[in-house]
């Protein structure tokens, strides 16, 4: 064959044209590229009709109104409810991630489970509801028949709302006084309210109207109180409507948002509050109308025996002058004086306490008392912009429980924790005392334990001791929706619906000024074989029969809820909440139910003397300084849930890389302290406290006081799913339980610690 130039060129063009014209290569390329755009393993969300269901978020005690976007029968997004009294449209990241709790099948408990492996190992066997109920009923009957009714005990997240009250009612009808809630600052606040004002009520803060907030370590924008509401208040202050002074050893976000951050030696907040009081009194800057007419125990007074007792004035002037307080707190005398003056000069000053989120611990009573005293000195009790006491919404008006002999006998047994006894007369629940009692005793005061809406194995201080105590309890019944640490420790689990699958009433969020009830509504049908805890209680009662069964005359929980809420139900169904907007706090003439009918600085007849209420004692920290030269404190973050809910994946994703790196938590340390220890950013270290040790990494942070180190709460889970479990360290493993000397409540905060290079 001979090829000349012409045939060569035409051949070339022919080949090119032939290829181009043949559809095959083009079709193939196109098909392949389309395939890459629709990989069969990339999900295509189903479309459907859009509608919104209003409900209430229960992931923290914030009580935010939410609206859930649904597409067909899928819930696709949680949003804040516009115009809601608590959060007016705002929502936090935990609330936004709610659907990951609902649809997070890996963390959910799908059917009743019975333990087959060792405690805590997490090996369970699926059982039916009938089997589960009859097993628990048999166990309860057995315990009851041996005269041990009072040894059945319950830890509930709260004692508020119908579900918690049904649990409590169940114990009452069964014959046990041993109902417990998890600790929170509300315990101390409510106790301080009772001691100073003689009332059982909720504390409320009129933050929207305050123009000067003096915060003793409260994480105003870190989850304290009702988080979204506090954020919105904070934004008002940032618009120039108020000033915030933050007192704490670490530059928290709240401190950074505040107008002034005053670092303080950890644990000396009460002394500072008393110091400020002494300046206010010495300079005669206090609200004379209130103090002279509506307060008792400011001046020295004579008790019933005619003995002169020291009043608040003499107590602080003598013991807490600014020089002395400067030494205790490490804050300049001049700062103390000018802070006291700024506080009283403001038109609506407000002092608040409860460190960080105010949830993990009850705190020290003297601190709350001192903070209350500051508020009293400026007369902002029950005033616009001040601290209020409001009645708890008393809608639960069930008939009194009819008790059989066993119940009558059991309920009269002393409480395990001695709450309400002569030793701790004013405290309702002292769960913090229980692990110690169980671990030191021979007998088992608890035969059966119910756990609902709480994760004590994770969330109580000194995890090891808590586990040890739980090991002594022969039978643990969990009601959790999630396979959390405590559920993993249970012998049997009767899983509750997730909040988006159930009805529930959510009464007044922490610190809110109006009586309020939010309604959680089923947004979608239950995903699994779970039951509303209310219904589970009814089934158990029915199984036990007799007076116990009679105590629960409702067909089901929904009926019970509707009946209980009676005339409020319509408003709840329609708006998702009920509010008593008309409530105004009682005026000074009527507010106080103490013997003196006044605000009492000295809790006459209740406290031994004034020093026992307010007295500051230094060093309440466990551990000796020589072996443990540093002080470890916890900090809370919106990005780390630390209660009975653990971070869902989206929230974990938001955790900063200066907090968690891979599976290692970073401990905050001042660069100066780190230098002394020869540590640098990201380096590994061994953290030791008198209670435990942990491997951590170091994060240098200028915002923390030298000599102090800080760990976040909310990590170190050993349960849930791979997105949360096995990451970081649980702060509670490193800290011992500290009991408040007056109230007996949990006052755990910091601990002495040592950090060595690893």
């Amino acid at each position, binding site marked *: *064959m*001979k*090829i*000349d*130039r012409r045939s*060569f060129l035409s051949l070339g063009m022919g080949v090119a044209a032939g290829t181009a014209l043949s559809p095959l290569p083009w079709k193939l*390329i196109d098909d*392949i*590229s389309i*395939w*890459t*755009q629709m990989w069969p393993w990339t999900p295509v969300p189903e479309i459907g009709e859009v509608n919104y269901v209003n409900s209430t978020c229960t992931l923290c005690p914030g009580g935010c109104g939410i609206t859930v976007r649904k597409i067909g029968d899928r819930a696709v997004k949680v949003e804040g409810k516009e115009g809601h009294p608590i959060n007016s449209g705002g929502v936090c990241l935990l609330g936004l991630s709610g659907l990951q709790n609902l649809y997070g099948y890996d963390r959910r408990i799908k059917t009743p489970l019975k333990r087959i492996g060792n405690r805590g190992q997490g090996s369970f066997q699926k059982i039916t509801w009938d089997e589960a109920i009859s097993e628990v009923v048999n166990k309860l009957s057995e315990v009851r028949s041996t005269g041990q009714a009072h040894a059945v005990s319950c830890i509930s997240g709260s004692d508020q709302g119908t579900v918690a009250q049904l649990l409590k009612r169940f114990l009452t009808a069964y014959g046990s006084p041993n109902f417990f809630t998890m600790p929170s600052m509300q315990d101390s606040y409510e106790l301080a309210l009772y001691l100073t004002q003689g009332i059982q009520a909720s504390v409320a803060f009129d933050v929207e109207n305050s123009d000067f907030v003096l915060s003793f370590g409260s994480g105003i924008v870190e989850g304290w109180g009702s988080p979204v509401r506090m954020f919105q208040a904070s934004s008002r202050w940032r618009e120039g409507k108020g000033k915030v002074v933050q007192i704490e050893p670490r530059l928290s976000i709240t401190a950074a948002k505040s107008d002034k951050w005053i670092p303080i030696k950890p644990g000396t907040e009460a002394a500072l509050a008393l110091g400020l009081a002494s300046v206010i009194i010495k300079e005669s800057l206090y609200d004379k109308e209130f103090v002279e007419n509506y307060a008792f125990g400011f001046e020295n007074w004579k008790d019933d025996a005619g003995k002169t007792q020291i009043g608040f004035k003499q107590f602080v002037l003598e013991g807490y002058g600014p020089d002395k307080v400067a030494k205790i707190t490490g804050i300049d005398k001049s700062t103390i004086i000018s802070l006291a003056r700024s506080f009283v000069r403001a038109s609506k000053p407000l002092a608040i306490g409860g460190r960080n989120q105010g949830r993990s611990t009850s705190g020290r009573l003297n601190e709350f008392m001192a903070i209350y005293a500051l508020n009293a000195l400026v007369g902002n009790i029950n005033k616009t912009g001040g601290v209020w006491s409001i009645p708890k919404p008393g809608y639960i008006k069930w008939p009194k429980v009819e008790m059989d002999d066993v119940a009558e006998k059991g309920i009269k047994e002393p409480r395990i924790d001695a709450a309400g006894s002569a030793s701790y007369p004013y405290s309702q629940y002292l769960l913090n005392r229980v692990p110690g009692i169980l671990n030191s005793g021979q007998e088992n005061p608890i035969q059966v334990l119910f756990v609902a809406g709480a994760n004590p194995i994770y969330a109580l201080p000194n995890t090891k001791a808590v586990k040890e105590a739980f090991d002594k309890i022969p039978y643990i019944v969990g009601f959790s929706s999630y396979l959390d640490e405590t559920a993993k420790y249970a012998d049997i689990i009767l899983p509750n619906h997730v909040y988006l699958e159930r009805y529930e009433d959510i009464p007044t969020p922490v610190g809110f000024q109006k009586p309020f009830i939010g309604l959680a509504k089923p947004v979608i049908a239950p995903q699994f074989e779970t039951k509303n805890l209310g219904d589970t209680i009814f089934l158990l009662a029915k199984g036990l029969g007799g007076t116990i069964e009679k105590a629960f005359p409702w067909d089901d929980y929904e009926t019970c809820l509707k009946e209980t809420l009676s005339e409020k139900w319509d408003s709840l169904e329609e708006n998702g909440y009920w509010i008593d907007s008309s409530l105004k706090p009682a005026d000074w003439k009527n507010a106080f139910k103490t013997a003196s009918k006044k605000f009492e600085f000295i809790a006459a007849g209740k406290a031994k003397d004034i020093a026992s209420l307010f007295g500051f004692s230094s060093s309440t920290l466990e551990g000796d300084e020589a072996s443990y030269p540093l002080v470890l404190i916890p900090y809370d973050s919106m990005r780390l849930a630390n209660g009975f809910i653990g971070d869902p994946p989206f929230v974990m994703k938001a955790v900063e890389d200066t907090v968690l790196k891979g599976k290692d938590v970073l401990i905050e340390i001042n660069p100066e302290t780190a230098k002394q220890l020869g540590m640098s950013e990201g380096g590994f270290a061994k953290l030791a406290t008198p209670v435990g040790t942990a491997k951590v990494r170091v994060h240098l942070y200028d915002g923390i006081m030298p000599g102090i180190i800080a760990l976040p709460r909310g990590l170190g889970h050993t349960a849930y799913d791979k997105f949360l479990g096995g990451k970081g360290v649980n702060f509670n493993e490193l800290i011992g339980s500290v009991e408040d000397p007056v109230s007996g409540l949990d006052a755990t905060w910091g601990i002495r610690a040592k950090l060595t290079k690893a």
Partner: protein
Amino acid sequence: MDSALIPVMDDALKPKGVQRCPIWQFALWICIFGAILLWGVYAMFLCWFKGLNQTNMNDAYGFALWIWADLAVIALGGGAFFTGFLRYIIGKDELKNIINYAVLIGFICYSSALLILAIDVGQPLRAWFIFWHANVHSMLTEVAFCLSCYFGVLTIEYIPLVLENRQIDKVPFFHNLAHNMHEIMAIFAATGAFLSFFHQGSLGGVAGVLFGRPFGYREGVLIWPWTFFLFTWSAAACGPCFTIMITKLTEVITGKKLVKQNVIDLLAKISGWMLASYIIAKILDTVYWATVTVPDMGYTLKHFYSNPVYGIWILFLEIVLGGILPAIILITKTGRNNNVTLWIAVVLAVIGVSVNRWVMVLQVMAVPILPFESWYLYLPSWQETATTILPVAYGILLVMLSYRYLPIFPQERELNPID
């Protein structure tokens, strides 16, 4: 197949009148580089099937080791277009004695570059969208078009070489095809030179247009930043140095003189003057950038070299050692004619242009831009390293095969007569 057949076939394929190493030795080296190639191919498949998570790239380091290799290899492959330009357009006839090798090296470089790109993109099967949905504003569009066209040209330039294999040439069709292709090679060389001027430039433009990346950003004329011209210029200057370097390396390995000194000298001299003029332009560019462009954006020169890894030494290495020094050597006759200094010059020039490509893609990523960021550093994963070495092994194999079986060096027989 009977193993005894192999030496026979090998003999039949080798060009006449030249000496080649024994087949076992050849086979051994093929195996060694073949193994490296396979390692790279394995890594390549990992990247394709498991995705780019196999690399240590991240959201700050979207361009990494192999993109540098890509740019470097294209710059070094510049010997092909520039030698072609000199031979066919300027008419430097002596260069016909090195053009084949320049074309081969260019072919290797460009096919490697395309392969790397095919591994680098997250969706290789959609890579043709660059043509289908072409964005005329994008330097990368320009790069893609010119690069693929020029690869076509190089293939066309390389094919006649293959056809000249002793056995293939026996087939009249291929013989005639080769002949005809040679006849029109000037057209392709001209097209190739034109395309190359542009895509080398647009590669320079890739970093130069990034006005969000002050370290790479350059002002310029019309739509072209100065780096557009600097890249073309430096490729034209250093590409031939690479051709010389590889030629000399081949000579060392084969133990034979393959190209006459006058040819090398001519290419070296032209490179030298190109490099000298380039480095003056580069210095002017750097000074203008450092004293006008960057301060306007709020940065100082020091900012860009304030990292222990990315220190000012890089600038010294690139400009002084990799630019000024080889330029001086190559423009002086004594420098060119001394084997040692010539070696030093071409190696330094190759390093210089490679460092330039490194800083223009990788240091650009490493420098903090927002005041609250810090430096981003990155170390390649083994998969990246293997896929980057893959083209090197492939190049060596192709050179070995081409040298053994194709008449690459027209002067070989004359310089190495066999009796």
